């Protein structure tokens, strides 16, 4: 039996695309001027246009958390947000967590606890953990696990990530 099966759909006519335009991002304390299509995601703007490839693309659907960055201190999935929306925001990526040679306490704790293997989800886990600590909602291991569940690690360094976060959390003074 032979049938004609008319998908992938018949090609629609190409739209008249909006021109790339100027977008200025403030990333890790620096202003970066880009000329990008308005539908460019924050993730692709960082990785492909600003060449800050520390932020990772794992799924491009907001399901894995590898692209997590901090927007004015709040953790977001950069793949689910357009760069053009963030011109007035302070973006912090994995490249901006350390102060010069001095690692952020979470970065050091991740090394000490072997909280990663392949390292691909690590920038997202770290940015997410920084956001988690500043949110101040998590106190117990169970709460950390619940509130870090947006960041998938297929190597499954999960127990070590949680112990790294706990160490830093308990070294910090509790928020009022």
């Amino acid at each position, binding site marked *: *039996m*032979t049938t*004609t*099966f008319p*998908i*992938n759909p*018949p*090609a629609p006519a*190409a739209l008249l*695309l909006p021109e790339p335009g100027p977008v200025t991002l403030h990333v890790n304390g620096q202003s970066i001027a880009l000329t990008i*299509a308005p*539908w*460019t995601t924050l993730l*692709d703007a960082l*990785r*492909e246009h600003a060449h*800050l*490839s*520390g*932020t*990772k*693309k*794992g*799924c*491009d*659907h907001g*399901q*894995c958390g590898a692209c997590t960055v901090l927007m004015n201190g709040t953790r977001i999935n950069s793949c689910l947000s357009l760069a053009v929306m963030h011109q007035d925001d302070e973006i912090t990526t*994995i*490249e901006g*967590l*350390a102060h010069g040679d001095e*690692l952020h306490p979470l*970065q*050091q704790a991740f*090394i*000490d606890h*072997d909280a*990663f*293997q*392949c*390292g*691909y989800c*690590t*920038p997202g886990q*770290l940015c997410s953990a920084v956001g988690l600590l500043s949110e101040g909602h998590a106190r117990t291991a169970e709460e950390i*696990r*619940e509130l*870090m*569940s947006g960041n*998938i690690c*297929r*190597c*499954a*360094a*999960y*127990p*070590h*990530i*949680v112990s790294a976060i706990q160490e830093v959390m308990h070294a910090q003074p509790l928020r009022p």
Partner: protein
Amino acid sequence: MKSIKAALIDATLNTVETLVGHLPDPAPDPLRNAREFIGKPYPRVDGRLKVTGQARYATEHPIAGMTHAVVVHSSIAKGKISHLDTQAAESVPGVLAVMTHRNAPRMKTPETASLFNPVAGSNTSVPVMQSADITWNGEAVAVVVAETLELANYAAGLVGIRYEEEPAALSLEAEKGNATIPTLVVTQSPEVNIGDAKAALAVAPVVSDQEYETPWQNQHAMEPHASIAAWMGKDQLLVYDSTQSPPGVQHNLARMFDLKPEQVRVVTEFVGGAFGGKVAAWSNVPLAAAAARLVGRPVKLALSRAGVSMVVGGRTLTQQRVALGATLDGKLTAMIHTGYGMRTTKDVWAEQYTFPIRHLYASPNIHVLQKVVRLDRVQNSYMRAPGETPGSFALESAMDELAHKLGLDPVELRMRNEPDKDPTHGTYFSSRHLREAYALAAGKFGWDPQRPEPGTQREGDWLIGTGVATAFYPVQQLPVTIKARITADGHVEVSTSSIEMGVGLATVQTQHIAERFGVPYERARYLHGDTDLPMSQASGGSAATSSVGAAIHAAADKLTEKLLKLAQRNKQSVLRGVKRKNVELRAGGLYRLDQPAVGESYEQLLGASGQAFVEAEGSVPASALVLNMKTSMASYGAHFCEVRVHARTRQVQVRRFMSAFDCGRIMNPQTARSQIVGGIIMGIGMALMEEAVYDERTGRLMTPSLGEYHVPVHADVPEFEVYFLDEPDPVMPMGTKPVGEVSIVGTAAAVANAVFQATGIRVRHLPITADKLL
């Protein structure tokens, strides 16, 4: 009746085993008990790069003139492309090319890699975009190349394709009648007959005879399969690829583009996870190189998450029968393990799910037979502990069922059937400490040999249960060549094309180098991940640490001789006239064995000779590849877990997981623990959630994202305790045995057995979702 072909293969395998039996045992590695660097929890050598975002993965290498490629996938399983409309896509300003079978550069058909031909470097022998033919739903049918990723993504949606569809084989259940017996299962016969298992089963006082099913699973490494391809002129190709085998990718591309291997350079600094999915190249790699040739510029091609599910083969679904017969006191009298996995039209890769039963339990009567069913789907492939993982689910569930029928503690049942010799090969074990692993883990877990009846333990709304299972993974060795160089300033550098995908290979080899050459850790260096370096085959089979280690050992032996020759030429040397067998590398130099204080440092030896360095290559001897035919060699483990199942919603949670392992000598307890925990969590995913669903009418994958194909997240993870016996194997380099894959083996069964004890419901079809516990 066996076919003539099967009989010939059996005869050949028997001959090889007999020949291997005459090989001498390798001398025990003097480092198997060394403790200065080996065995210590050194942090990863690449840790700082990874936590600062500086580790560069495949598509993160900046190259001038980069373009971006996006793949369009077929929407039918079998047939032909009848009509292609690429005009709209091509008309988008900034789109450089729409590559289809009409304009793709000619590429030779790839050659499938196997244990016998690993360097072939492809996972399939399906031609890549060379005709209108479609062989599975999701196959790449077009590649759109544009100035930006945004434009390529947009234009990919404008490619119009019509197909002439042909009937396809899409259901394993429906096609079982056409099943065939594969020629080989990895290196072994698909069939084993010892005694008469069928007859013994028929008269066994206690029998468990059940069918088990495991679904198709995807590796889903966090880094999607991705490459950069750049042509330097017509005949030099540079590729950055996320692969477990840079030399495999190199040879595959050389073959497909009619080049010599040395015209292709593959660089892999970091791999964002692989789990078997990157053992060899999938079509995305040659497509990147073809697109780069077509547009005359470098091309970056990263598959989408859906693309990974469609282009990259996962673990075959299986249907297995395990029948066990035993005496009333729990001695096995019959073991039968048969079943079905899939193959494709072009390639047969029979996943070795019957391997655990060949090595785990003593029984006078054993029957094993694997069959494969041809399906028009993406080629099934490797995923963490292929074979042992689905096979152990069936076998270790069956052991639990038998224990329940016998009214016997499932730990005790295993202990009563622990063999003295390999049950199917009759060979001795190089080392096997499974009893000790069970004793250790049972004690730590607080295992109760007289557990209450299934379904009777309750805490509030939760039903509680415990389960056990055995872990097993055989020793393999890989072809590896390394170069070791000792420099006049006392540093030692080892280089090889092997990759680091997160297993800790670079870290443990740095420890090994420091130990082997007696230099401070800071003076040891391990370079890897580039085909310009000496060739190491794919990293896989939990064999990289021992294989690379054996090659380093071989190079160290050669360097000992070279350094001694330097000393012999120097009239002032205290080592002049000393015999080879009376010197060793130690304390940063060459020293006498009989007078440990007498010797010279590397600086002195090289300084006196005026050489900047001395270097040597080391390789794994070919005989090492088949050593496990002479001696039964494997890692073993004992899993104990506790689950709770919600009485009303039937949600399953793993609460505690404790395991003890005989993985030989542990090079680094921290990285080893990470590997073990990672494997167990992937096994928990297999037990409770992982399942790729295909529409059996169209062959379309219905779980192309992480929203449909669930993998474990933080909240799914229990409390862990992992113990290593840390007993060196007498035969293996550094005394090591496999670590990377053994822990996923048996995990799903341990969970299923615990769920049975919690609920009284036996789930034989993974994953154990709530609907199966109603």
